């Protein structure tokens, strides 16, 4: 019998376990397998085969049953997801059943949980921007939270490394607050955007409007063609899954790279209950897993564990990994685990209409918008709040969806709608939020979910700093549009709750001191050196730019470090 156990353990033993298969998990699996490690990638969601399982990718409008709307049944099974657009007819099967693990909101938090291999890399917005030293130095300069243990120079080569593989389309600007990436050709701007850009350059020196930096292949290079990807077809239906592999996702990019090494085992339907810690070696020995379908439990073993389950899920796993050594959760000597929960706040800005130029139109559907990098609290600019925001948005001509003369019908209505409408343009801010210690998540130990795992409790809110910033988002957007010649400019503030931007970050922050942070500068858990957390949970502050590119770079960097440490017998 003992021999059998040893054999069984051997069959369940890998060099590395990667928890999660999204943007970060995919990168961890790619890097570790390419460096020769036998890797087990665990994903709690179901299988989603590249192309074949993208059910709506090639459907014509008339093949959608509800033009994108959710059915009552879909709303009932995921009532929290149903509060916003990412959960819709086309993507409904990619998202989680809230009812299976109904999280608790002391204050509203929109938690967008996927339920598929690939995670949110399938449905993500694909905007990719580098952090700068203005971001990495911000906490230290402002004297809040803790200092980042890294600076731009530490991550710069890793940005380049992941960009060359992922493929980022964009325009170089040479701005200190928004370092340039390794760019594929930029996408074109709409006529109205080019007009507004010209006027902004004249009226607002220091405010730069550029085309969005996006992980869609404006041109496929060798690195991308090598994993079977093709260029963007400009259909703008990315979130359904791309049959051309034209945007970066786990399925299009990191998974084929990892699989081709022969070193990857991917196990869907595998919910990690906890990371198992050995107090003698002071390392994790592996993870315990529940099969989401059969409820069967089993253990897997490895030399290192990469926790890439997404910000909230990664921290929930650490919190649920309780032992005599770590009664408050694995690696939680500092008490910071679960704290400093952040997101971006957005949905405040302005929009307006453009008169004339109705003889100009466009061709194709650009899966991208424009971007105005942060200009507030930079250089000599000083505001009554900390940090800043960037604008995303764009212009186009209205389509048949528009409202024409409210009470019209008949031939006139039909004729009007078969022609393009007016040019319109809008900007919406994406603002940095501060790492408030009190903004936190925890586990409700008395409230087990379908699989017997405690549900997550959210207690976080945006505060005065964010509120003040939103005033600038509205007013700045309006003044830029008005000065550029837009008419009927109106500001909007459609409210934004933590989680809504799906840029949730923090809760297991990196830092220089194990007394005030969970991870060190290599994304290593201070007190369990073979456990690495490289997704959004690790973030010490959030800047105002979309974060996924930074997760990619940090993950590749940490994977490189981990393998070097293994070679040195340190892990």
């Amino acid at each position: 019998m003992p021999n059998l156990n040893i054999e069984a353990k051997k069959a369940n033993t890998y060099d590395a376990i990667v928890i999660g298969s999204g943007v970060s998990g995919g990168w961890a699996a790619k890097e570790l397998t390419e460096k020769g490690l036998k890797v087990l990638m665990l994903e709690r969601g179901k299988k989603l085969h590249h192309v074949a399982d993208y059910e709506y990718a090639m459907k014509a409008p008339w093949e959608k049953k509800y033009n994108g709307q959710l059915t009552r049944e879909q709303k009932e099974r995921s009532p929290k997801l149903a509060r916003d657009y990412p959960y819709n007819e086309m993507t409904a099967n990619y998202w989680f059943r809230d009812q299976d693990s109904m999280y608790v909101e002391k204050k509203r938090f929109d938690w967008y949980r996927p339920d598929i291999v690939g995670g949110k890399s399938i449905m993500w917005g694909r905007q990719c921007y580098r952090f700068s030293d203005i971001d990495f130095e911000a906490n230290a300069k402002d004297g809040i939270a803790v200092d980042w243990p890294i600076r731009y120079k530490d991550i710069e080569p890793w940005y380049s490394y992941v960009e060359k593989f992922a493929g980022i389309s964009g325009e170089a600007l040479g701005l200190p607050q928004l370092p340039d990436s390794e760019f594929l050709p930029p996408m074109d701007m709409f006529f109205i955007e080019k007009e507004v850009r010209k006027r902004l350059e004249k009226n607002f020196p220091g405010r730069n409007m550029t085309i969005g930096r996006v992980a869609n292949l404006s041109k496929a290079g060798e690195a991308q063609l090598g994993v079977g990807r093709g260029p963007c077809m400009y259909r703008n239906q990315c979130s359904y899954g791309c049959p051309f592999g034209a945007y970066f996702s786990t399925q299009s990019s990191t998974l084929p790279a990892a699989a081709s090494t022969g070193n990857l085992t991917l196990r869907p339907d595998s919910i990690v209950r906890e990371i198992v810690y050995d107090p003698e070696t002071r390392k994790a020995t592996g993870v315990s897993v529940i099969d989401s379908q059969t409820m069967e439990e089993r253990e897997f073993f490895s030399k290192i564990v990469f926790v890439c389950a997404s910000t909230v899920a990664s921290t929930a796993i650490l919190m649920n990994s309780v032992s005599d050594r770590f009664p408050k959760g694995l690696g939680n000597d500092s008490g910071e685990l679960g704290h400093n929960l952040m997101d971006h706040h957005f949905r405040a800005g302005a929009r307006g209409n453009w008169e004339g130029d109705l003889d100009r139109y466009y061709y194709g559907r650009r899966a991208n918008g424009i971007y105005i990098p942060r200009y507030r609290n930079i250089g000599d600019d000083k505001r009554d709040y900390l940090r800043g925001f960037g604008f995303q948005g764009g212009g186009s001509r209205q389509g048949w969806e528009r409202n024409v003369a409210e009470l019209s019908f008949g031939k006139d209505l039909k004729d009007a709608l078969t022609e393009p409408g007016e040019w319109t343009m809008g900007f919406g801010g994406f603002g940095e939020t501060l790492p408030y210690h009190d903004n936190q998540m925890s586990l409700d130990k008395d409230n087990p979910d379908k699989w017997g795992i405690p549900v997550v409790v959210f207690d976080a809110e945006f505060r005065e700093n964010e509120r003040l910033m939103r005033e600038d988002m509205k007013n700045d957007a309006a003044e830029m549009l008005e000065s550029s010649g837009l008419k009927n400019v109106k500001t909007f503030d459609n409210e934004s709750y933590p989680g809504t931007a799906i840029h949730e970050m923090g809760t297991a922050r990196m830092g220089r001191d194990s007394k005030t942070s969970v991870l060190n500068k290599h994304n290593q858990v201070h007190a369990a050196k073979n456990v690495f957390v490289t997704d959004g949970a690790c973030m010490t502050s959030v800047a105002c730019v979309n974060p996924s590119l930074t997760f990619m770079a940090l993950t590749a960097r940490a994977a490189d470090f981990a393998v070097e440490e293994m070679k040195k017998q340190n892990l």
Partner: protein
Amino acid sequence: MMKRRQAVERISLILGGALSPQLTAALMGQVINQGGSIQITEAQEALLAEVADVIIPTTDTPGAKAAGAEQFIIRVLRDCYELKDQETFYTGLAKIDEASQKAHGKAFVDLSPEQKIEIMTDATKTNKAFFKQMKQFTQVGYFTSEIGATQALEYLPVPGKFEGDAPLQPGQKAWAISR
């Protein structure tokens, strides 16, 4: 597709032919709650198609009825809307027929084209909430239908490139997929 009457007959058979008048009426599509959805009659369906066709008529391209826009409306209401919202909508629809009977002593579907326009014009004032919702439904149902998207609009499933500034050609229609 099985006609409703045949379906009812089949159910009668299964139940041994002893249907209560209420249940028969229900199965024939009177307003009842069945799993949160109103089952509508063939007459309601025909009326819906006719009203949609007045909102988006046949011109040089086929209109809402030819495009089957009413099927989209029925489906969305049945599967996506709460029962009370379905009831409100179909009550509003019934008022179109009531107005027709009152003004012309005929069902809406039997009116002349001019009379239909007259009743609908009246509805923009007296049945405004219904009109606005019906117009929105028809607009979406029509322009996302195969006829609407490919004949009334320019359908371009795989553009292959993006140009943000291209001249609008004379007679060029709006893109069927605009975002």
